[in-house]
């Protein structure tokens, strides 16, 4: 059983927590209206003024913001704080369009670190731990975010960043790393390299926890990682627009705790923009309650999730979001059917003959979309009888169809041939010309 970083806030009764949220919502609305020309304009267009926001429910009167707003106002047009108060910038990679810039005041960095300090404590880490940060440092928020969070709880940080995998494993042994933070796909790669080096993560290292995120991953992958290495693998969530990685599951592993004193979340039906009930899938919308350089009002990240507002058995009262199903940006539409790469992953990782790495290729043949799923055959899955391999291919295809409702071609490929990634894995190649 692990303790709390800030027990007063983390276990605050809902009534108090909602009162705090209400106060902070009113303040942030007033603050952006007074400091950001962008928001003032938006509010005017929506016919809403700060005085109209009296209760938490009034949040629905506020206009939405989206990534496109950040792009249109590149680089700092949406900022509310003057340059003199900004102490750091992070910039998104811009792989899906123009990059987006986020800024932080000194207080914003503090809040971000505090959020992660609570999260890391909730999975049982403290000042005795050695945290290896295998996320990229630099413009990407992953590395520095985890770095500050881990330092705040007094853990020793090993700022290795991405790549140099053999060295990562050597240092993990030499310095007694107890927790690692990186993308789940990179950790799978580390597992593979360790095995090649003849090192057992279970027996030869002190690793006990993995904090994995920055890309969707399935419960089946968690099981694989935990079974193979004996560690506890936790999901972490956050995106650069709301600071970076911010929230994790607690040791109970039943959803990711979103700190309600820092953020107000809504889960909405993407068609009607009305809130969905607890337990139903909807689009996650964030309002930052305690962020000053770049506060965001009703920001639609595009992630689909399920909310659980019941207090957790760990004693924390803040709402939880369930494993992210996928980002609407990642969703493929194949023959008119929505397909999330995370669904493909969860099917594949449940089949023991399939290796840890996989790829989706989408093509158009004539009028028809074709989806091909490439999987690596594990040594255990290899039979020298062609018939067995054909059967395996059929089985994978059938299980994919059962979940996705569309037929997929399955390619069995040799182990080690699908590209490994150090950061966010590129699992999908869409060759359709739109």
């Amino acid at each position, binding site marked *: 059983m692990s303790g709390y970083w800030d027990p007063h806030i983390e276990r605050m009764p809902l009534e108090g927590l909602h009162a705090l949220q209400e106060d902070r919502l009113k303040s942030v609305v007033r603050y952006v209206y007074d400091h950001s020309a962008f928001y003032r304009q938006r509010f005017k267009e929506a016919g809403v003024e700060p005085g109209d926001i009296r209760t938490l429910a009034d949040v629905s009167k506020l206009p939405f913001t989206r990534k496109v707003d950040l792009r249109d106002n590149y680089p700092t047009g949406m900022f509310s704080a003057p340059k003199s108060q900004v102490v750091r910038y992070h910039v998104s990679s811009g792989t899906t369009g123009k990059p987006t810039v986020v800024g932080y005041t000194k207080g914003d960095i503090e809040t971000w670190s505090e959020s992660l300090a609570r999260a890391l404590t909730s999975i049982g880490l403290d000042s005795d731990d050695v945290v290896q940060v295998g996320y990229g440092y630099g413009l990407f928020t992953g590395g520095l975010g985890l770095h500050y969070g881990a330092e705040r709880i007094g853990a020793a940080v090993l700022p290795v960043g991405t790549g140099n995998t053999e060295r990562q494993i050597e240092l993990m042994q030499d310095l007694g790393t107890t927790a690692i933070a990186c993308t789940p796909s990179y950790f799978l790669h580390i597992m593979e390299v360790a095995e090649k080096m003849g090192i057992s993560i279970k027996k030869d290292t002190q690793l006990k926890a993995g904090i994995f995120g920055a890309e969707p991953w399935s419960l089946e992958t968690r099981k694989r990682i935990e079974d193979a290495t004996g560690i506890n693998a936790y999901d972490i969530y956050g995106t650069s627009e709301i600071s970076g990685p911010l929230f994790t599951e607690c040791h109970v592993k039943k959803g990711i705790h979103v700190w309600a004193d820092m953020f107000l979340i809504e889960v909405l039906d993407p068609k009607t923009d009305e809130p969905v009930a607890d337990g139903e899938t909807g689009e996650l919308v964030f309002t930052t309650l305690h962020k000053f350089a770049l506060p965001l009002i009703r920001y639609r990240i595009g992630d689909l999730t399920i909310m659980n507002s019941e207090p957790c058995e760990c004693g924390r009262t803040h709402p939880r979001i369930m494993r992210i199903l996928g980002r609407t940006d990642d969703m493929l539409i194949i023959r008119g059917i929505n397909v999330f790469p995370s669904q493909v992953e969860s099917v594949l990782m449940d089949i023991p003959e399939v290796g840890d790495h996989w790829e989706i290729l989408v093509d158009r043949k004539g009028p028809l979309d074709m989806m091909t799923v490439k999987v690596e*055959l594990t*040594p255990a899955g*290899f*039979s*020298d*009888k*062609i018939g067995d*391999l*054909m059967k395996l291919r059929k089985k994978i295809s059938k299980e994919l169809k059962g979940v996705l409702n569309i037929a997929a071609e399955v*390619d*069995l*490929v*040799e*182990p*080690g*041939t699908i590209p490994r990634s150090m950061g966010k894995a590129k699992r999908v190649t869409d060759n359709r010309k739109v």
Partner: protein
Amino acid sequence: MTEIKQISLFVENRPGRTAKVAKTLSDAGVNIRALTIAEAGDFGVIRMVLDEPEKGYKVLKENAFTVSMTDVLAVEMKDTPGGLYEIVNTLGLNSVNVDYAYAFVTAKAQRAMLILRVDDIAKARKVLGEKNVKIATKEEIQAI
């Protein structure tokens, strides 16, 4: 009786893959006695009888190939019409199923050699022995 170990490899059907297998074995000084490739579209399975199967298995594994070892029978076959019939008919009559088979002719031997993978190797050995079919030993394959 030590069975003959056949080495099987999973290979994708793309240029140069078989060459890579051959080079890996050649560099290790391992000799291929018999080889067959079964293909199924995008991938295939290479099956080989090697003079040093353990060494071959090790170097292929080290070179990241998906490789397995399977027990097979190597039986001598009269190099005349009806040679194959005698063997497979005996197996069939005794309900031994042949998963696959391939043959090769050696320079030294007067006879053809048939490599068989069957579902019941002990029974196959027994029923073929009763018909006086000669079954090659591991040492004999090595010495070819």
